[in-house]
């Protein structure tokens, strides 16, 4: 069980800042996910924590002990961590048993204890009965379980996971997410998970860290990040959204009225996250497609009610994905899969002021 503190971590590759003044505190037993597009520096950060990369500046502290700084870097093997890689990195010349027992043999534990612990971790990762197989006789999912068991068996202070599910097929990936979460909850092991897949981060993590160009854009629970995105980047990276650019025309204590560049007038309720914008300031309004209501007939609302036209419709099984034209804006709207509207049909559209999120333009 361990606490990890990252203070002002900076790492440059040439001119590129892979980690730029990155600071984060991770609690004992917490499961944190670093999310971001490729090249955002999430893997670099993780590899700094593992000790594979020397930081240019800043510190990484494990339970009050500095393990990485500009001056001193503790080698990976002395950090008592474990890591699961995207490539599985299961050793092909060792059996499943030998893969898992390797870390324990390094610690010179008695044979019987090695056996007990290997067996327990086989059970935990649902690999029982496969201990004498070689990795090439296993499926991708089983190999990744071996990698996980190999890490867990040494009872690490911190578990690092670098896109562990990216090489698996969709169905297996979804199943493994829940298994990973379950195991982490059972062992209460401090875990740091890197992924470019925001849905994966939402399923797995207690807290999500959205990274962009080496910096942290936002930290929060899945709900925070999704509903109260703090930046244009977070809003568009996490899920899909409509981004409307405009200017504040009127303002009172709990509402602003924004006129978008393409002619929509929108009332937006004051939220908790971002700074409430002033009159005449430029803002960006984010509206999630499923927060918009559309009806073929008039909806009884005083504000934020618009008349529009269906431009495009796509049936996606669990929902309809419409493009609705209002004034000169085209908005993406998702409705239940039973709300069928024809292309070119006139519709009434309502946007709840409380479900709009304002961002800095």
């Amino acid at each position, binding site marked *: 069980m361990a606490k990890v503190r990252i203070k002002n971590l900076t790492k440059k590759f040439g001119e590129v800042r892979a980690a730029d003044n990155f600071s984060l505190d991770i609690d004992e037993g917490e499961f944190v996910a670093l999310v971001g597009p490729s090249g955002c520096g999430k893997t670099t950060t993780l590899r700094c924590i593992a000790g594979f990369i020397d930081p240019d500046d800043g510190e990484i502290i494990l339970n009050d002990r500095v393990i990485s700084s500009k001056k001193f870097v503790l080698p990976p093997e002395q950090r*008592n961590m474990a890591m699961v890689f995207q490539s599985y990195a299961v050793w092909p010349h060792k059996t499943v048993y030998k893969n898992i027992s390797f870390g324990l043999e390094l610690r010179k534990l008695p044979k019987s204890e090695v056996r007990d612990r290997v067996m327990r971790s086989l059970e935990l990762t649902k690999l029982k009965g496969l201990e004498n197989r070689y990795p090439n006789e296993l499926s991708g999912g089983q190999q990744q379980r071996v990698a996980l068991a190999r890490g867990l068996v*040494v009872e690490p202070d911190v578990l690092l996971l670098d896109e562990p599910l990216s090489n698996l097929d969709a169905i297996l990936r979804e199943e493994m997410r829940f298994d990973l979460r379950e195991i982490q909850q059972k062992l209460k092991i401090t875990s740091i998970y890197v992924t470019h897949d925001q849905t994966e981060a939402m399923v797995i993590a207690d807290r999500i860290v959205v990274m962009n160009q080496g910096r942290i854009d936002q930290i929060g629970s899945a709900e925070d990040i999704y509903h109260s995105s703090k930046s244009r980047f977070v809003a568009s990276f996490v899920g899909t959204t409509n981004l409307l650019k405009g200017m504040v025309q009127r303002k009172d204590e709990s509402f602003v009225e924004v006129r978008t560049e393409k002619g929509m007038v929108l009332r937006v309720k004051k939220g908790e996250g971002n700074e409430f914008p002033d009159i005449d300031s430029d803002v960006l309004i984010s509206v999630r497609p499923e927060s918009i209501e559309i009806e073929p007939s008039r909806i009884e609302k005083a504000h934020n009610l618009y008349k529009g036209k269906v431009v495009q419709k796509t049936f996606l099984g669990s929902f309809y994905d419409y493009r609705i034209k209002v004034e000169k804006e085209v908005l993406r709207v998702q409705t239940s899969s039973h709300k069928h509207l024809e292309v070119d049909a006139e519709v009434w559209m309502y946007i709840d002021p409380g479900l709009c999120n304002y961002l800095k333009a």
Partner: protein
Amino acid sequence: MVNGHLRRGLKGFDIVKWVLFPIALTAVAILILFPLIMMFKGSVFTPEGKFGFFYFLNIFKQKVLFKAFRNSMVIAVWATFLSLLTGVPMAWAVSRTDIPLKNFIRNLALVSMVTPPFLGAIAWIFLLGPGAGKLNVLFKELFHTKVTLFNVFSIEGIIFVIAMYVYPFVFINTASVLDNMDSSLEDAANMLGASKWKTAFKITLPLVAPAIISGAILSFLEALALFGVPAVLGMSRGIFTLTTQIYQLFHYPPQFQQGAALAIPLVVITGVLLIFQYLYLGKKQFVLISGKTTQPTIIKLGKAKWPVLGYCVLVVSLAVIVPYFMLLLISLSKVWGVPLTLSNLTLHNFEFILFHYRLSQKSFLNSFFLAFLAATIAVFLALIVVIYNKRTENVGRGFLHFMMVLPFAIPGVAMAVAFLWAYIRPPFMLYGTIWILLAAYVARRIPLAYMACSDGLTQINLELEESARIIGASWFRSIMNITVPLLKISLVSGWILIFISSFREISASILLYSTNNEVIAVTIFTLFEEGEFEALAALSILVLLITLIFVAGSRKVVGKSFAQVS
């Protein structure tokens, strides 16, 4: 990705800095750098210490030397031409047509590549020698004539025999590209209405051209560097090449400086062509392979398949079957020349060379000892350098890489010249001992081990090592427990390659051996000069047998791709 920490070894003791680097550097200095420097130095200073390029100018001024230079070029160019004439059509035939016996032809092409060419040359003397060559005799009897069909002791004879043993470079290079080429490129041409012949010439041939040129360069370089064939077929008739002329210069009266100067054109030509191959052709070759596995379209030849098959079988017969059969017959004869009857056959020659002939016993042991040690040391050193180069970030990696592949560009005779310059006098007096042979073998063949290890390590994902580090293994431990076991196939294949080629090495040995340190190839050469043909043939058969056993073993270990390296 930067991996600063992989270099940090045991606590307080930097294993890379204090063990790996010194070993790699010492090896490179002893084996490659020092000999080459000494050779270059030797070629520009007179024994009195006067500096100048007169020894180079002599190559053009002295008729004998220039003739040797010209002969080498003529032989290499024509042998390359014949290699193209045989290798390309054969590659196409086994890869893209429906002729039978494809595997037979492929395997025999591999056999001719691992056959020591000077054994082929000796065998051909018995077939095409001007007086008693079996084919010449047969020709005279059949046509009641005194005209000789073909005299193998000639420039043409040398060209012919060399071509039989260098064409596999073209063949294997071309065939492997044809095997792997995305045949949809050809299908597209067919769909547009091109005939199968037109497609072959207009689409396939240009696409395969880089591979063909690359194979031709290897054939050319091998033809240029060979010592045994021109020595056996040329020297007795006054026909000299660069390699045999160098050999001559080191005999009485020795002209060490001139020998060094004559070796340098060999090194330069080889170096330039290899750099060309690497820079220009290396890049062009991979574009053809799409990554999808598509079955190449097989052209149905109809009746034409019999002449095509005949051509392929003729080539492999001339290169392998006929000479091997000849050597076998001679090795089983009581006396060569008497009519071949059962009562004239004997195993006595094998008994003689194995149990009664001290020189062959001695050289067998020496060759085994040297090949075994050379392969082991070369693989060990190559492994250390490769790990240093690819798994640390310390200084000198580029330099070490260059030094490790440099011997590719140094023909055996030139390597021997360099070693003579470096190790014939104090402070490093290795000449006269078996160790100079060992050092030369390691130096000549270390690129094979280096390339095998390097390719192998490139395919090992760094994460395999990192996942050992993070759960508690030191850098050294992760290399020993994870990397080295995973490299096993590369190490074994490198070892076998070096063993095979060192076991029958002649080009460097002929200049570096001394009494009591004879090796097999030298003994065969001695037997040849003394006219002991039956014993020679028996010894040759044993060498071929051992070589083939190792080749077969290595194919088991590494599969088909093995055929591409020699």
